[in-house]
């Protein structure tokens, strides 16, 4: 066994809490347990199990990395959300498209949807087109506070190049409403005020929950006596501190699929492959390209609201270990209904009465879990039809999101990976890496740190090369601030988007810099 610092990776999903202890590239111990209503209890149980398995002292853990879908699930399900007041600095521009434009009615109702438009804002060149209306900002804050609102989302036109417009507005709100929790749009998005403002509003609506969940996670480790720093996985699979996650929970909203794809890459040693994460209710299929998930290019929606986050391009289908299997005329239907987290009680092999995909897999000899005798009565022809449905649905989904006709290796991860036993059309081979059932926790444990910029740079004034160097430096500084080791940082993404239709010489540049945690170099 290797030596060196030990990291603890945890994935707190909707159903399962998975955990892994890693040292360098070695997986020392893994465990899977149920997520609890207060996430703390599940985490404590998982970590106690791991430490008992490994027999090591908790003091040897040097970092804890946690991925969680708690926040995105809460917004999608419209639960535990705080009412939000959105204040946009923009008048006289933009009054025809106010904050919350295009929101689904139920999301609007869940966050109250109160908004204020106030004077101020910047041209694309950074010059003010109107003075910041400080009185109107204070009046908006007072009005919102009267209805008991303490979560605020602030936005301003061209805030990515003039963040001071939002920080000045925030100071006024904070002075007016002392317990205000404020999200600035410039912290959660780039050019495109609507998508950026939406992200800020979603974030503000999660602020109460984030305080509770992150506080509960911190408490879990205090209770366990683990004193190592705690990091949270964000959307691109890199890490942020618990302070940042508590303030900006939206940054974690697609960490789940990202971690499982990154974990699959690490465990299989592949950089380019198809990844299928088979859980209890769904199978999520994504693509690994150059060691990172392929991301979507179109604007993304979170719970029906458009944002400008880049997300892993993942297709979910309703096939998982808990999928109901229903006989049809001469065949079988599998999913999309599922027993979900009740699998350990309801599946036939576990003593229940519901026929699930897991029962089929056990009957076919694909996995040695539960009591095989309890499914021995299943007709082989029926089992065959169910297996054909499972494999067929996965193969169709892979075909749907593939961008090349060339067959690629398929990496199977997740607790439900026993469902697949045979070749899948479109896959050159099927790989089942060791520890694949906790790939998402592994993905959290191996995560790097990143820094991003998305701003307009003056190519005409600086020259293209100097402007791009400036953008790269800005991203590297952001990565170092987030905890990356300066010498190991790589630029992994650089996108230039010229300002078309105008002879301005300004170019929107998006850069992402990634490096390992300074503590682990």
């Amino acid at each position, binding site marked *: 066994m290797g030596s060196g610092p030990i990291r603890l990776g945890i994935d707190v999903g909707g159903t399962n809490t998975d955990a892994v202890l890693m040292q360098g590239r070695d997986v020392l111990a893994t465990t899977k347990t149920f997520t609890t209503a207060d996430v703390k209890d599940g985490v404590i149980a998982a970590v106690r199990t791991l430490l008992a398995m490994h027999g090591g002292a908790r003091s040897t853990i040097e970092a804890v990395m946690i991925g969680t879908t708690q926040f995105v699930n809460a917004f999608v399900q419209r639960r535990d959300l705080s009412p939000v007041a959105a204040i946009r600095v923009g008048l*006289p*521009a933009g009054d025809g498209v106010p904050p919350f434009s295009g929101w689904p009615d139920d999301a609007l109702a869940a966050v109250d949807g109160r908004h204020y438009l106030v004077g101020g804002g910047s041209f694309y060149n950074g010059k003010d087109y109107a003075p910041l209306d400080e009185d109107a900002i204070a009046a908006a804050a007072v009005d919102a506070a009267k209805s008991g609102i303490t979560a605020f989302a602030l936005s301003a036109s061209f805030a990515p190049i003039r963040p001071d417009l939002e920080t000045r507005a925030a100071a006024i709100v904070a002075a007016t409403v002392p317990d205000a929790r404020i999200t600035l749009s410039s912290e959660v998005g780039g050019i495109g005020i609507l998508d950026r403002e939406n992200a800020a509003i979603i974030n503000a609506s999660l602020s109460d929950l984030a305080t509770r969940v992150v506080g509960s996670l911190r408490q879990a480790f205090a209770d366990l006596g683990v004193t190592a720093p705690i990091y949270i996985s964000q959307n691109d699979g890199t890490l942020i501190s618990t302070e940042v996650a508590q303030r900006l929970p939206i940054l974690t909203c697609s960490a789940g699929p990202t971690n499982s794809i990154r974990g699959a890459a690490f465990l299989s040693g592949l950089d380019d492959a198809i990844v299928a994460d088979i859980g209890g209710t769904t199978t999520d299929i994504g693509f690994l390209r150059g060691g990172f998930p392929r991301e979507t290019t179109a604007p993304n929606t979170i719970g029906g609201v458009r944002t400008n986050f880049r997300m892993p391009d993942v297709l979910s289908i309703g096939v998982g270990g808990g999928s109901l299997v229903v006989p049809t005329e001469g065949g079988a239907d599998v999913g999309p209904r599922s027993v979900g987290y009740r699998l350990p009680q309801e599946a036939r092999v576990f003593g229940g009465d519901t026929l699930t995909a897991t029962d089929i897999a056990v009957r076919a000899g694909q996995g040695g879990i539960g009591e095989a005798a309890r499914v021995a009565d299943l007709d082989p022809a029926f089992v065959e039809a169910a297996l054909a449905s499972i494999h067929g649905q996965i193969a169709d989904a892979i075909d749907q999101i593939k961008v090349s*006709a060339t067959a690629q290796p398929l990496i199977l991860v997740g607790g439900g990976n026993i469902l697949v036993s045979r070749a899948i059309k479109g896959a050159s081979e099927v790989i089942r890496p060791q520890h694949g059932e906790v790939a998402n926790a592994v993905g959290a444990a191996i995560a790097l740190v990143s820094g991003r910029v998305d701003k307009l740079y003056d190519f005409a004034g600086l020259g293209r090369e100097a402007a791009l160097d400036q953008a790269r430096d800005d991203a590297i500084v952001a990565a170092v601030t987030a905890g990356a080791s300066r010498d190991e940082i790589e630029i992994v993404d650089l996108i230039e988007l010229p300002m*078309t239709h105008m002879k301005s010489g300004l170019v929107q540049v998006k850069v992402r810099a990634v490096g390992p945690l300074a503590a682990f170099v």
Partner: protein
Amino acid sequence: MIETVQDLQDMARGAVLLGTGGGGDPYVGELFVSEQIKRGKLPKVVSPESLDDDAFVLSIAGIGAPTVIVEQLVSEKTLLRLLARAEAFYGRRVDALISAEIGGANSVFPLALSAISGVPVVDADGIGRAVPQLEMTTFSIYGIKATPCLLMDDVGNVVVVDAVNDRTAEDLCRSVVTAMGSMAFSAIYPMSGRQVRECAVLGSLTLSQGIGRAIRVGRDRADGDPFASLLAYLRQQDGRVARILFDGKVTDVLHETRDGWHFGLVTLQDLRDDKDQFTIEIRNEFIVARHNGEPATMVPDLISVLDRESAEPLTGEMLTYGQRVKVLGFAADPMLRRPESLEVLGPRLFGIDSDFIPIEDLAAKIEAADMVSAH
């Protein structure tokens, strides 16, 4: 015609297809109108035939950089003030609004003003697609001058441009708009009801909405082929030819900006055969599509790139490596193929060394070549 948010979304989807890669994303204007529809304020659309000969009709258009529109959005007050200033300036009540360009963002701004002012929009436009310059509209080609026009920004600056010709008007307007922060609204192309019938491309809003609806209905059907539904609809339009030129994935996208124009080259490849190549040249819009080097469709006929599964039309700026798409070729409105139109918006005007060849002739050539190679 536009009574629900879905009607509007259909129209905007069609406008992106007719934008032939450019024209700007109608999303911001679409949200503006959706908000009005939710409040019960509907844009009104009237037929060109319903206009009196001497009715006063005016275009309302956004001019500016897409990057700025997505930050400064659209102001109700600015649009209403522009209408009031225009009526004062021209000395006449505006009887109807018209879109200068149905392809892209400027399809929706007249609808936005209609919803808040009650002034109807004519079911017609100045090009039936998107074009990069003012003088390329059928308004300019068939004798309606763009100026005198008004340019107004959100702060309240108003500039009147009165140019010797529309080519110059284009340059003057762009300089003014740059000084206004690269985004302004214009009241432009003052015309009569009779001129609408003579110089505009008619039925554009109906076409745009019909395209968007055909795609949506095709998706929702059990057999779910939006392309079959879209092609069937397009082929009902005065016998205009529509065909899928290519089915494959994007393997390369080059973008560059020269003199404020977006130039680019998109390369696609067949999913099964990497020797089978397809390219699309961009000059703000898609201007020529070539299959293994042979032209398949050229400007002013329309080239559109659509998502291979959903048939969602994509703009040039949305194209990135790896996307699976189908490329659609669609014959331009017959008005755009007349000699006097081709003089202003034929391929040579876009730097292509070829006279205009209609999509149907190019298709016949490709089929003949396929027949020869099959033997």
